[in-house]
């Protein structure tokens, strides 16, 4: 294998590349079709990432790929900041991207920039016309773009580390599932490792270099019970550099526990009847509840105006985010600070648009007081350095490192006690505790699965629980399987009855679309810190089994293979 990543890392510093792109940037500002609105902002983003993907099943390598990603994004705005080609539905909008050569040269970069800018300009002019034809801005329209001051900054660059050991570790970790033998239908570990950075160049003289680095390892197992129900579980380790990973024996032990729990769960009874009542969300399940129900209410970039095209509206027709809305109980607060933990892969100094990262106090006393924004104007709010995105997309204000702080916390014991008391008012002698939810991208890893991740304002979908137990007052616990949430609404977070110990975790947020479209190690690392929570009322219903999916030919036993 040719170690071209070593070569590339050196070249990433090559000023000739920047000179070539700067020259094309300058030349492109002269693009002007007759009677077309003028270009007022033009930016290039050069992404140079060394990438590794390793996939191993049951102790064997399935795939190993180390093709670098070199891409160029062009962001071109015509008109004026008060009304331009952006923020309107459709995909031919002036934001384009293209792949670059494996071995870029100044000339090849310039040629790519020339072709992409030409496309972006034509798209922008047409999109401006479409938007002008269909949308008359109201008097209080905040405009489309807050023009930044030119920026020159160097936040650094990341280099990939030799990952031969990491590859072997992935194979070894996947071997944990081998001993489960024929019980598991999938036993897989996936490594996604990328390092490099992005250079942002603007026609206004902006020149920002920022690093990107992430190591994500997702381990997942699928199991089919005798009644045809599929159970899944997974673990994610997401760090900036390989040396931040836990020691291999610790990772292995965690997977062994996951494997054993999954096998044990297959023998447990299914939820037999609907449950309405209090539910205690512990650990990762609590973090996921905030991830799915709270995070979307904090990301404040205005939705695109729908484009009434011949095949229906393009663009979001809803704008679900509000300042002043109660989203958590009294006394609760939340903040997001991309610099809170600089060793986390989500951390940055300048955001995707070049704005300086800021701490934002989002929720005070349970009410949304501020939102995460980028440079797309929103009435009453200023850009606060939370733009995240990828080449070819309009970026938006996104959660990065979210801390949710309750008014007070209590011990797990007290939390359970309170939950049992609340359950009694529903006529129940037990409390339901959820400890982990299924991961959509993990469920989708099995090609036979059909999962839909459609969200709307009224009915949010929560993935089904993986770990769910009945808990009685005498401390007995009965592990269950086969439950899913019904009719989950964002309002349930207002009804948090109590909170317990704080935990933190990382999830991979989709750049666009939803979680079911992601591969197991794809997405933007996002950190959440939040407490265990007791929710006053949630509905759980039995999930159906499908005997049709029960294997006729069980997998072989490990001992029968060489």
């Amino acid at each position, binding site marked *: 294998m040719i170690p071209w990543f070593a070569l590339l890392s050196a070249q990433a510093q090559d000023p000739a590349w920047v000179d070539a792109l700067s020259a*094309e940037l300058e030349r492109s500002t002269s693009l002007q*079709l007759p009677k077309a609105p003028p270009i007022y902002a033009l930016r290039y983003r050069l992404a140079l990432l060394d990438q590794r993907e390793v996939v191993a099943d049951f102790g064997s390598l399935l795939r190993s790929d180390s093709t670098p990603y070199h891409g160029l994004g062009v962001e071109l705005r015509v008109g004026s900041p008060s009304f331009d080609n952006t923020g309107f539905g459709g995909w031919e909008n002036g934001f384009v991207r293209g*792949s670059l050569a494996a*071995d870029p040269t100044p000339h*090849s970069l310039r040629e790519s920039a020339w072709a992409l800018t030409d496309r972006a300009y034509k798209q922008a002019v047409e999109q401006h016309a479409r938007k002008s034809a269909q949308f008359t801005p109201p008097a209080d329209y905040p405009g489309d773009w807050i023009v930044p001051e030119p920026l020159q900054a160097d936040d650094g660059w990341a280099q990939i580390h030799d990952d031969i050991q990491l590859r072997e570790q992935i194979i070894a970790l996947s071997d944990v599932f081998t001993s489960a033998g024929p019980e598991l*239908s999938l036993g897989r570990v996936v490594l996604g490792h990328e390092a490099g950075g992005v250079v942002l160049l603007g026609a206004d003289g902006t020149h920002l270099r920022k690093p990107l680095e992430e190591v994500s390892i997702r381990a997942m197992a699928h199991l089919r019970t005798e009644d045809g129900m599929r159970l899944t579980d997974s673990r994610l380790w997401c760090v900036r550099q390989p040396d931040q990973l836990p020691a291999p024996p610790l990772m292995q032990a965690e997977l062994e526990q996951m494997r054993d729990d999954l096998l044990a769960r297959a023998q447990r009874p299914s939820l037999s009847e609907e449950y309405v009542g209090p539910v205690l969300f512990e650990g990762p399940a609590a973090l996921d509840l905030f991830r799915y129900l709270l995070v979307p209410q904090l990301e404040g970039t205005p939705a695109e105006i729908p484009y009434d095209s011949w095949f229906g509206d393009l663009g979001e027709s809803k704008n679900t985010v509000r300042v002043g809305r109660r989203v958590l109980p009294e006394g609760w607060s939340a903040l997001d600070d991309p610099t809170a933990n600089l060793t986390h892969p989500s951390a940055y100094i300048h955001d995707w648009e070049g704005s300086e990262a800021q701490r934002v106090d989002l929720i005070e006393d349970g009410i949304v007081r501020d939102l995460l924004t980028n440079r797309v104007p929103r009435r009453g709010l200023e850009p606060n350095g939370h733009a995240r995105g990828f080449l070819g997309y309009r970026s938006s204000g996104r959660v990065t490192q979210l801390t949710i702080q309750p008014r007070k916390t209590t011990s797990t014991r007290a939390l359970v006690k309170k939950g049992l008391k609340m359950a009694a008012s529903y006529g129940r002698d037990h409390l339901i505790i959820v400890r982990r939810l299924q991961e959509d991208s993990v469920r989708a890893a099995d090609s036979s699965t059909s999962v839909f991740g459609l969200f709307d304002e009224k009915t949010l979908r929560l993935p089904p629980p993986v770990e769910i137990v009945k808990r009685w007052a005498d401390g007995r616990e009965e592990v269950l399987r086969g439950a899913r949430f019904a009719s989950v609404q964002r309002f349930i977070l207002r009804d948090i009855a109590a909170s317990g110990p704080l935990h933190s975790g990382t999830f991979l947020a989709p750049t666009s679309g939803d979680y079911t479209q992601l591969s197991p190690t794809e997405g933007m690392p996002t950190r959440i810190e939040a407490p265990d929570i007791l929710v006053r009322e949630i509905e759980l219903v039995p999930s159906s089994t499908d005997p*049709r999916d029960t*294997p006729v*030919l069980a997998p*072989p036993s490990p001992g029968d293979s060489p």
Partner: protein
Amino acid sequence: MIGILFATAGAAPLMDSLATQLERAQGVFAEQSEAPHYIALAITEEHSLTLSANAGTIELRDEDTSRWLDVDLRVGSPALDSTHPLRGFSAMQGESRQRVRLPLDDGYALDHALSRELDARYREAAEHMVVLRTNQQVLVEEESSADDFEPRPPVTDSIEIHTPEVDIALWEDRLRAASARADRSPDVHTDQVRLSVITQRRHFLDTEGTSLVDGRTHARLLLDLSTTAEDGDEVRVFDAFDVHDPAQLPTELDAWVDAQVQRLEALREAPRGEPYSGPVILQGRAAAVFFHEVLGHRVEGHRQKREDEGKTFAEHVGEPILPPFIKVVDDPRVPRLEGVDLNGFYRYDDEGTPAMPAILVDDGVFSGFLMGRSPLPNGVRTNGHGRRSTGNPPTSRMGNTLVSASKTLSSAALREQLLAQVRAQGLEYGTIVDDIEGGFALTGRMMPNAFNIRAVASWRVYADGRPDELIRGVDLVGTPFAAFSNLLAADDTPKVFNGTCGAESGWVPVSAVAPAILFERLEFQLKEKGQDRPPLLPKPHSPNDGSAEASP
């Protein structure tokens, strides 16, 4: 250099795994109410190397080793089994089969994956069989009464597949230089030069006792140039060398590149053609692709059994469909013809059947079909044309479609005959189709049974002696019987088309060889056209263009 080709040292451990899992599955499935009557397992080990240059630098460098699994499992009996198509509303029930990537090591993970796919294919086949029986009862009797499967004596063979050596650094230099040379032209907007080398080793085992190890190596050097004409037309020119051994590829590329750049520049300036009906010569790759699309796809055996297929020639066996001087044979066994390696060469098809020649047209008389193991009535049996790309069930497909003429003219004489036809029909010009980018054929009943030959470059040949005029933007269209009945003559210079053909069973490598042919009358229609203006700014100057002007 390509290093170790495959993770396995040899075929034996892999074949052992296949045999073990096949035996285990047979035992389990035999106890079910719907038992398989046939199972085949195939693992294709693949090593691919792709090097590609554009704008004078390497744009892609990719090397991959992979293993792919195919399980062909039939429930029922050879007379009626689970591969039998459903009709009516039931036909909406599709097969969920996909490409199955296997671990690179032998061992538990491999056995687990084999078992999982065997189970998935069995359950789907068993379900299909239940629906099929009712489907047969409820609906009218089918037009074809042939069995679904042809049992066959087992075949055993093991063929060594050699690993080619490729000097990556040397080839990267060549590709860079070729791309930079094309990039000098301001009119060439993309100038991709690509080398791909793929080696496949297939391990095949079935319940009849067939045990095969075979495979192929294919290398392609491709030049793909594009530009945008002033009228918005996306103009593209490509040319390729296909060989069985990368050592046979050309190494001096300058003249080749220059010729293709000239073709692109000429096409960019050429006028668009117009809808037209008149005498036409198809030459070079165009004639070969014509036979591939118009005849080849229509004589694929499985199409003669489906109720939704047009069955153009199904009832014409023994009848003349072409002039008596034309013969068409599909013979996958031919590795090389007319000095060119044939892409459709193989020894065994994807059902484990030895490749055989299929005589399609003899002295103009339609003689038979391309057959896999899905037989036709009257004892029409496999001739080793069951093919697929991994992830698909095999169907009957072309390999090397060889067209020959027992009565030929020189190229000049053929041109004279074209002009004679133009004059006889009172037309201003005739047309020579010089190059094509591919084509397609519609063979079903819901759409016109038409073909489309995607012409890249055609020439108007004027009756009044004006110089020939290059045109672009038109495709050749028609229907098979009408087109064949207009075939007048052939020249004495067969040309080879090497390509890849896509159909229900995936993309398979194919070749077609044919002389130039003259038609009394064929029809052209306008090709779709791009609407984007050419780039508003000129292409940045190439550092290799020899110009003293600096980039702005």
